[in-house]
């Protein structure tokens, strides 16, 4: 029986009215428990607040209402220890080479040089970047750059990894491969993973549970259990269970997506 790793209660996010726009209720209210070591995906129509939710869990923003607890401690606008984030945009620093990028978060941590070097070498190997250790992001493809960002996150040994549509900019084939890699990392690190994705396929084939969000203001409409065993990823695409899950997801989302597109509440 696993324990609750991250607990959200009544989380809402309201952007106050400014001179140019009215008040925006981006999120709310969300009640959610992430179990330790699980792979949880979040899907929902555009603009439903998925990214806002991720940033609140990460501590990059404060919730307007409700609470977020990580390992029993409150998360409120400050990034707690043990959290890693991979963003949709390429966040690799163009002025550092791959090794410099990966080492970036480790420098101030007080680890000794040998430990740092060992972790970097391990991360390079795990992400298949060893021969690109001295390359600069400008010389790499989009997929490689995302790998650098993932390596940079891994090297800090996070216990929670949040990914905000990390493969959004990649083509379909690369996405499948990266999905399998993500599974491999998940198994190796044992971290709790929250993956935001707009790809229903991706959510269905990778995760233990899928949270389906409504249109703005986003609420958790339903949580689907995939009941996958260790066998998952691109290999389960042909199974009937995969089809059931994606059909159910689309059922839930069809009305919400229309609502999001036309703006009719």
């Amino acid at each position, binding site marked *: 029986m696993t324990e609750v790793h991250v607990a959200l209660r009544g989380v809402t996010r309201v952007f106050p009215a400014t001179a140019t726009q009215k008040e925006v209720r981006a999120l709310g209210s969300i009640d959610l428990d992430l179990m330790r070591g699980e792979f949880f995906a979040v899907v929902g129509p555009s603009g439903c607040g998925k990214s806002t939710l991720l940033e609140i869990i*990460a501590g*990059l923003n404060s919730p307007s209402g409700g609470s977020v607890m990580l390992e029993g401690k409150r998360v409120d606008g400050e*990034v707690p*220890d043990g*959290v*890693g*984030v991979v*963003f949709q*945009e*390429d*966040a690799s*620093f*163009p*002025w*550092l080479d791959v090794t410099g990028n990966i080492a*970036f*978060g480790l420098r*101030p941590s007080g680890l000794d040089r040998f430990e740092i070097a060992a972790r970097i070498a391990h991360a390079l190997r795990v992400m298949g970047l060893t021969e690109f250790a001295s390359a*600069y*992001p*400008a010389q790499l493809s989009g997929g490689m750059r995302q790998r650098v*960002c993932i390596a*940079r996150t891994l090297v*800090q040994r996070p216990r929670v990894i949040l990914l905000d549509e990390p493969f959004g900019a990649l083509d379909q084939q690369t996405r499948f491969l990266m999905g399998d890699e993500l599974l491999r990392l998940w198994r190796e690190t044992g971290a709790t993973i929250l993956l935001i994705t707009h790809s229903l396929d991706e959510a269905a084939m990778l995760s233990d549970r899928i949270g389906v969000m409504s249109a703005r203001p986003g609420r958790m409409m339903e949580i689907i259990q995939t009941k996958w065993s260790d066998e998952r990823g691109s290999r389960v695409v042909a199974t009937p269970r995969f089809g059931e899950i994606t059909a159910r997801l689309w059922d839930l989302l069809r009305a919400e997506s229309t609502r999001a597109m036309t703006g009719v509440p």
Partner: protein
Amino acid sequence: MTQTLRTALLVGCMMAVWQLLFWYAGSNALTAPLDTIVATAQLVSSPAFYPHLIETAKAFAVALGIAISCGILIGFTLGVYRFASDVAEPVLVGLYSIPKITLYPIVLLAFGIGMPAKIAFGAIHGVVPIAIFTLGAVRNLNPVYVKAARVMRLTPWRIASRVLLPGAIPEIFTGIRVGFSLTLIGTLLGEMFASQRGIGHLLIQAIGLHNIKMIMALTLLLVVIAVAASAMLLAVDRRLRRYAL
């Protein structure tokens, strides 16, 4: 046709136009290209010239140093705080586009005649574009870099020094390039108004004596120095942007 050939052609055409103008306007108005080049060479090789060159160089170096340090400091501080930059940016842009030469009498009244005034002229011309470009560089840096740094729990100081500054350097350097040229102009103008030494002073003197050859020789020298410096800075700029995405 390669680029060097093209540039040579360009310079050749400009020389030709110059020569034609000379034949049209006469030696009371212009000096022929070849004669000017000879005069410039003579000027540079005469020992009396060097004190003036050093004077200008000293004033320029100090003015540029002030412009760069103040400009980056101001621009960076404003760039980090969004509201401050909202308030200050139009002011800076306004300062950039007004004829700052109108302020010269005030500078002279404040600093008197001599080196401090020249340095002040140069610095006020250079600091504004450097501040503007630095402000823009910091403010427009892709926000995802700061978010990534926050997730890695860097302190605000480290975020500023290890993310904002390196990320902003290419754009800051563009501001330095612009500031370089403007500081040079300001320093020269200062020497024209407020000095008994320096290249600007030689220029005013030549004007007073109606010494066409000297005027043209000095102008040619200034153009060559300015273009050479600009080309070098451009090369550095390209190198800095090599890794930019």
